[in-house]
């Protein structure tokens, strides 16, 4: 039984520094494991389209003939299925969130030259 038992905590909050961070002057460093956004090392992509099939929200579009790989960040739910499924591991999950924006944009990556086939590399070696 008591009255104003929280007095000790309140006194401490009044007398010490506030518990919140002074954002935007002080930003928290993201954790290594945070699922932020998807990045693609486009020079190694083989345009197989497996990431497009696995994506639960259909955020990725792959057009093999034009060598284009596109993602809509606003549709992406950062689940990481594409990263797990990619056979050459060119997709990775970066740990910063995509910025807020007033329009829904698509990020289009175009591959100039296709990566060397594994057979060709073996012949040269």
């Amino acid at each position, binding site marked *: *039984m*008591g*009255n*104003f*038992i*929280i007095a*000790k*905590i*309140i006194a401490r*909050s009044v007398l010490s520094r506030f*518990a919140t961070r002074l954002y935007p002057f002080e930003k928290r460093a993201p*954790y*290594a*494991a*945070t*699922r932020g956004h998807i990045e693609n090392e486009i020079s190694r992509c083989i345009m197989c389209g497996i990431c497009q099939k696995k994506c*639960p929200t259909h955020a990725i579009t792959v057009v093999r003939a034009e060598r284009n790989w596109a993602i809509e960040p606003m549709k992406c*739910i*950062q*689940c*990481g*299925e594409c990263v*797990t499924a990619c056979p050459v591991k060119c997709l990775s999950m970066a740990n910063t969130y995509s910025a807020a924006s007033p329009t829904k944009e698509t990020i289009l990556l175009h591959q100039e030259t296709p990566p060397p086939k594994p057979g060709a590399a073996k012949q040269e070696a």
Partner: protein
Amino acid sequence: MGTRTIIPFGPQHPVLPEPIHLDLVLEDEKVVEALPSVGFVHRGLERLAEVKDFHELVYVAERICGICSFIHGQGYCQGVETLLNIEVPARAKYLRTIWAELSRIHSHILWLGLFADAFGFESLFMHCWRVREKIVDIIEATAGGRVIFGSCKVGGARRDIPNDVLKGIKAELTTIEAEYNELKPTFLHDNSVKRRTVGIGTLSKEQAYALGAVGPTLRGSGVASDLRTLGYAAYKDLQWEPVVEHGGDCYSRTVVRVREVTMSFDLIRQAIDKIPEGPVDVKVTGNPTGEFFSRLEQPRGEVVYYVKGNNTKFLERFRIRTPTFANIAPLVVMLKGCELPDVPVIVLTIDPCISCTER
């Protein structure tokens, strides 16, 4: 005989975390009857089972609710794994237990904060959420997201927590528990809290059981029913017992949740000590066949997942019966005879998670 008025409560109300509508029939200031009506966030998620294969459906299951997200994913995975007849490795079971208990702590502390806000104790609300931030940071560092974990999949866990990180978590939990213990005396002994919660919304033991109450609503009325006793995941290897109180009023339900947070801290420490080495997932082949009711203990009570497979990669039926859905009938009974200012306190005491209720 006073005059009768009907006052709508919700769907927008400062105290409600999610929209529910109640038509309160009042006689002067006493509530005579309450009629709930839901459907503001009905998304028809159960029908997505027809177009998303059973591996992808985990993402839908997790996103049914933000507060109880991990245990939804875990319940779904356990149901499908039973249909596929596969056994998840022991390390994955312990990891799932650790994440589930972290989820329970963050949900209960969130509720304690909202409950304090329901009777106007805003500084206590802010301090509860300050303590909860540290738990959510641990979740983000291990699972990748603050709210949606994304770490459970059919066959095990999607990522591992290395042993040195686990030791770090154990040390961090000691600090967090010390801060949480400073808030406990206010909830348990402060006069202003007791005056708003003792004797309000009383539900006797027989009433609670007959009306189908689950979770802390049932355990606060003296029935020792906690689905973790079934021994899924790693619970059969850990020492614990259900937390029961006998008052049946809002105060008892608060005490149940306050004590459950302490029990969860202890469960996580036990799990970190006992976690075995090994793989965290197992290869999944084949399609689910048959039907199974997977039952788990969410922070709000018993959740039932009914999965039915017909040997294709799409489930035939995916049905979730969430704890708040079962607690609506006791809520209607509790509201009879209370005063109007007690309505927000009683509605919050069942821990309403309406996005779960309506899916």
